[in-house]
């Protein structure tokens, strides 16, 4: 309980809210890094997942790649890349991208793959081109699952972005590392609370996005049906 009081008083100290090591700046860096990692991972994972999902091939490959990438230790990846690139923001960014890819890949694959073949066949039958089928039928229907993958990835990345402080003066991780090593557990807990708050906010935002995507995917369906769709 004492520790929590320490954390709250650390958070309440106005000097921690300004300057180069201040909370707003670190939150900004943390979110920016999270967003950057998610964008890069999406560019890699979404097209690959969607393509494989569309051809309904490579499910086993996706499973193996996603599974083994998930088993990688993020701090191990960070150290390896750090020894190659040197310190700075690069190694943590690569490690976070590696962390985010499996969820995004799996989401894109299963989302696109779950679109019924009858629906795409019917779309073609009414005269849609391939591009139209992808853009107007498959993607909207797959979107709730794709966003679900992104939601899982975002949660992992925002929580793990604390590791950026391992090789760079960036993000909320500094509070954790410094607090731990100087036995300033109030500071450490305060840093954790901030990360948890960010994670909750991101989670709520992505949940709302996912609901929006689901409504878009099945505008006239009952809530029960749309929730069944998103739960795949």
């Amino acid at each position, binding site marked *: 309980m004492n520790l929590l009081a320490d954390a709250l008083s650390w958070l309440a100290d106005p000097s921690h809210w300004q300057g180069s090591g201040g909370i707003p700046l670190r939150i900004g860096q943390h979110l920016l890094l999270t967003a950057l990692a998610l964008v890069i991972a999406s560019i890699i994972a979404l097209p690959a997942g969607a393509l494989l999902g569309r051809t309904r091939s490579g499910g086993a490959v996706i499973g193996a790649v996603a599974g083994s990438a998930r088993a990688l230790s993020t701090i191990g990846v960070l150290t390896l890349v750090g020894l190659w690139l*040197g310190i700075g923001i690069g190694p943590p960014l690569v490690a976070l991208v590696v962390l985010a890819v499996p969820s995004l890949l799996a989401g894109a694959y299963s989302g696109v793959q779950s679109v019924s073949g009858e629906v795409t066949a019917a779309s073609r039958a009414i005269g849609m081109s391939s591009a139209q089928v992808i853009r107007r039928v498959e993607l909207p229907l797959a979107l709730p699952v794709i966003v679900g993958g992104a939601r899982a990835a975002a949660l992992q990345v925002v929580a793990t972005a604390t590791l950026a402080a*391992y090789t760079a003066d960036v993000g909320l991780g500094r509070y954790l590392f410094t607090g731990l090593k100087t036995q300033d557990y109030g500071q450490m807990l305060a840093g954790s609370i901030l990360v948890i708050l960010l994670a909750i906010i991101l989670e709520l935002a992505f949940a709302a996005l996912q609901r929006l995507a689901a409504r878009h995917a099945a505008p006239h369906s009952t809530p029960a049906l749309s929730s069944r769709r998103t739960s795949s």
Partner: protein
Amino acid sequence: MTKKNLLRFGSVLGIAVLGAGALAACSSADPLDNNSGGSDEPESGGSIVVGSQDYYSNEIIAEIYAQALEAGGYDVDRQMRIGQREVYMPEIEDGKIDLFPEYTGNLLQYLDADATATESQEVYDALAEAMPEGVRVLEQSEASDQDSYVVTKEFAEANDLTSIGDLAGIDGLTLGGNSELEVRPYGPEGLKSVYGVDVAFTPIEDSGGPLTVKALMDDQVQLVDLYTANPVLAGGDLVVLEDPEALFLASQVVPLASDAVDDEAAAIIDEVSAALTAEDLVALNARSVDEEAAAPTIAADWLAEEDLA
């Protein structure tokens, strides 16, 4: 993966790495061997019990003590790798261990948290005062295992550096080290107030490990905090800056001895301490890390080299 899991994973990884190093260094010091010989006759008359920390470098020093005593005709009972200070200090105070390699500054802080001495001789004197009853410190060695500021050889030559104070006036210096270094008294603030050196700070969270050394070699940082016994210093590419103002807490190798260590045995150990230089300790550690040689082998080779056994 949650952050907690990740941190746990990180610490497990760290332990695994340490464990691998431990395995490499202690492969021939079979703990079962000790038990089968020692537990039958625990009070075997006159044998000196030599212990060590669970730290490969400390074990090498303990092994040197043990072999030097054996060469002097003493019976030695090895109790290596007994965890950390909290574990072995009570054993030493109980008289269960007779000889143990320690580090002056770190041990002084353990025994007396309010101690203020940082300079080598002051630390040694304060430590001698603070020793519990029945235990004494023998002569300290020049070899140390303490924080130090390190630059590349190239940078030192280009700027004519030998001491930390020579850094004063150089622009654009960045210090790299663990997060907490930024708030330690010997961090950027101490550099400024004691030596008039201005530095920026970059956290590198691997405690002077390979990332820190690479950042220094790549000139991403110009100054790092490494332990003086770090085997990477054996490579010759790095220079430890002298610390005449004792910014860092001096922490030199010092043997703790019980009353079972008689004057003759103490003289043997003092001779070892006098012969063990800072460079020697780095080289011994480098053999353990690079060649994965076992502590007894490294110790025997060094003793032969120094004509002590």
